[in-house]
């Protein structure tokens, strides 16, 4: 970071040493909060303008866009696309709030996406496969936890390693087992259809979705509850903001961080399993089917300011864009396919540039060593 005097680390340190982290949820540079709100309002404003424009001129490109946005299929695609990103983002929040930056979310998604298909293929049970993916991701997260907590590895480099290991391991295993980077297709999780409610225009998509979408809703609510209402949530926050205080209070910081990382493994694993079981196949060419979703998840929780609900809404913004671009591609209008595909990545950069520096938990990235040994 630039470390200009006005925003030198010292400023942050003072904010972070505040005895009650609750009182400074947005203690970052002043601009960051208003920019974040600005983007949110800009997104809503653009949407409203598009819809109004579309209603006024139904036969123009605006009309087509408005149709696409208000289509039930778009919402349903956005929900589907947001599942892996939002799960990974929730996981990232648990890990980073506890003081360990988990940049390996992408790797956790990759390993669980592959394992879910493999276990489903072997056992025949889709939900057993789903569980298998979660276990694989949790084990990889455990490795990451041991390496960063016990052996004080740099969190960013170890996170990169987790990504690269999974990026090599999943196609390697697929090649060994299935003689190709792509697995054969297995069954999918299907979808739950709520009669009557699913008929509602647009919002009906909420009642005719894959089980993983409902699991995501539950996970978002549960994460919010854990952080806001439980002692464990407070420990996690303290472990990232002021580990010394937590230590003094008699709570083992390392143990809290282990749990934080393992929860991130479980959640990212659910996202990865849901991703591949939604299609019934794992594709491992190039960046694999995960294709940057883990990194978008990081931006989503930064944008959502470490709030599970905020992260979910940010994810819906990215996933919504992705859904719209998919529909536009199918309709063959406007921009060429390859360019439409990069829109979400461009938006991530623009959002990050505008939100700028998000205030990381004070001790995130630091190894914590309790005095006694």
């Amino acid at each position, binding site marked *: 970071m630039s470390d200009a005097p006005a925003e030198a680390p010292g400023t942050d340190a003072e904010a972070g040493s505040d005895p009650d982290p609750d009182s400074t949820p947005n203690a970052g540079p002043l601009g960051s909060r208003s920019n974040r709100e600005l983007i949110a309002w800009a997104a809503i404003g653009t949407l409203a303008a598009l819809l109004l424009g579309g209603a006024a001129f139904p036969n123009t490109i605006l009309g087509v866009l408005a149709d696409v946005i208000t289509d039930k299929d778009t919402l349903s695609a956005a929900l589907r696309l947001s599942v892996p990103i939002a799960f990974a983002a929730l996981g990232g929040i648990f890990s980073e709030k506890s003081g360990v930056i988990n940049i390996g979310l992408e790797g956790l998604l990759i390993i669980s996406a592959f394992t879910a298909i493999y276990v489903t293929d072997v056992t025949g049970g889709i939900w057993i496969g789903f569980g298998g993916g979660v276990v694989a991701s949790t084990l990889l997260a455990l490795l990451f936890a041991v390496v960063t907590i016990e052996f004080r590895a740099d969190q960013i480099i170890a996170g990169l*390693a987790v990504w690269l290991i999974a990026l090599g391991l999943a196609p390697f295993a697929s090649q060994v087992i299935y003689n190709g980077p792509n697995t054969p297709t297995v069954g999918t999780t299907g979808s739950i259809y709520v009669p009557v409610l699913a008929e509602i225009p647009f919002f009906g998509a909420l009642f005719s979705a894959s089980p993983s979408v409902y699991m995501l809703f539950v996970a978002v609510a549960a994460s919010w509850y854990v952080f806001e209402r439980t002692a464990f949530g407070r420990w996690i926050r303290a472990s990232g903001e002021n580990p010394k205080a937590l230590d003094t209070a008699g709570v083992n910081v390392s143990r809290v961080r282990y749990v934080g990382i393992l929860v991130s493994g479980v959640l990212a694993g659910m996202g990865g399993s849901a991703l591949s079981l939604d299609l019934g196949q794992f594709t491992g060419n190039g960046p694999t089917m995960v294709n*940057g979703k883990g990194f978008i998840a990081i931006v989503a929780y930064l944008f959502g300011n470490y709030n599970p609900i905020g992260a979910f809404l940010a994810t819906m913004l990215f996933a919504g864009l992705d859904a719209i671009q998919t529909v536009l591609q199918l309709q063959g209008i406007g921009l060429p396919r390859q360019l439409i595909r990069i829109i979400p*990545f461009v938006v991530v950069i623009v959002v990050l540039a505008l939100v700028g520096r998000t205030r990381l938990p004070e001790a995130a990235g630091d190894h914590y060593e309790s005095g006694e040994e």
Partner: protein
Amino acid sequence: MTSADRARRVLKRLVAASAAERILISSAALGLSILLGAVLVLIAGRMTTCTASDAVYYFGTGFCYDPVLVFDRLFLGALGEPFSGGWSPEGQFSVTLRETTLLMFTGLSVALAFRAGIFNIGTQGQMVVGGLATAVLVLRAADLVSGVVGAVLLIPFGVVVGAVFGGLYGSIPGFLKAYADANEVITTIMLNFIATGVTLYLVSGAFKDPESAANQTVPLPEYAQFPTVLFGGRQDFSLVALAFGVLAIGGLYYLLEHTAFGYDIRTSGLQPDAAEYGGVDAKRTIVASLTLSGAFGGVAGAMYVMMVLGTFQSGLPSYGFDGITVSILAGNNPIGVGFAALLFGVLKSGTTVVQFATDVPPQLVGVLRGLIILFVAMPEFFRMVGRRVVDPGSKPVATDGGPAKGSADE
């Protein structure tokens, strides 16, 4: 806590470790990764099927893949069979040097940024952009000149074009970081995806070779490609390019260690506050180091186009990501990058030999890459092991990053 703080701490730890210790840790990391890789090969060999006669037996159990054979092929194969007589530079060894050359540039790219306290994950994208620019502009320029004069003019021109465009692309995350505080790890990763998408669009549309079914540019004429000296032309390796690489290593070493700008970069990486206090313009240094870092990535792309393919094709190999491993393994030292690049050149070139000789999937090297990074990232692990082996009773000292480093770190 910013990423710069973090990077600074890593660098501090790396600098605190003596050069000898660093070499020891890197070698241990490499050895351990190979060992784990061997275990992985054995496990994979149990998961696949083969006939009993094809299997190898260890500890009374049959395995379909033989790790000894895999690593024998990987290393000896890549060196062109030095022990079986009839060694010639024409064979696989020149592939190894070709890969080494490319990895030198991507490794230097990552190392330079790292020394400034910046994680440049975007070398891959910078290489792609530089490569396409070189392919397109050299092709245009090739119409103007020809023959020996052409080669003398076009090759440096192509390298410069790659450097300029890679540098411009690298300056984007530089500006975003310096003036908008956007985390460079994420912006560079996003820019990689964007570079891939945009170049695919261009190379399948405006710049597409109409004669070819693949998404590629019109091939460059022979005189606009690196000449093969001493080595046969079959393996697309040029000693001239390798010489460029060695020069670049020397140049970056000199820049970092003996110039004022290099001093700014190093102090910004180690002590941004002190650097700022000492009059270093932090924002300018960030933009400059990422631009220069991108330039090295862009040159790697230019080399790939003018030495290996002779055209730009969508889907470049992941030299950029390998550059991260090369740099981390080298402790971000330019001279170390030379050796680490050679090692990874061996691994990459050996992969094809392994593919011919065995059924083991080539993605194995990708796994090794991740494992090596993981182990190099945890020097403490090796120190603990070392302490237990050398002096079981001794207390760790604070200066080597021992437990005395408390939460209040530094």
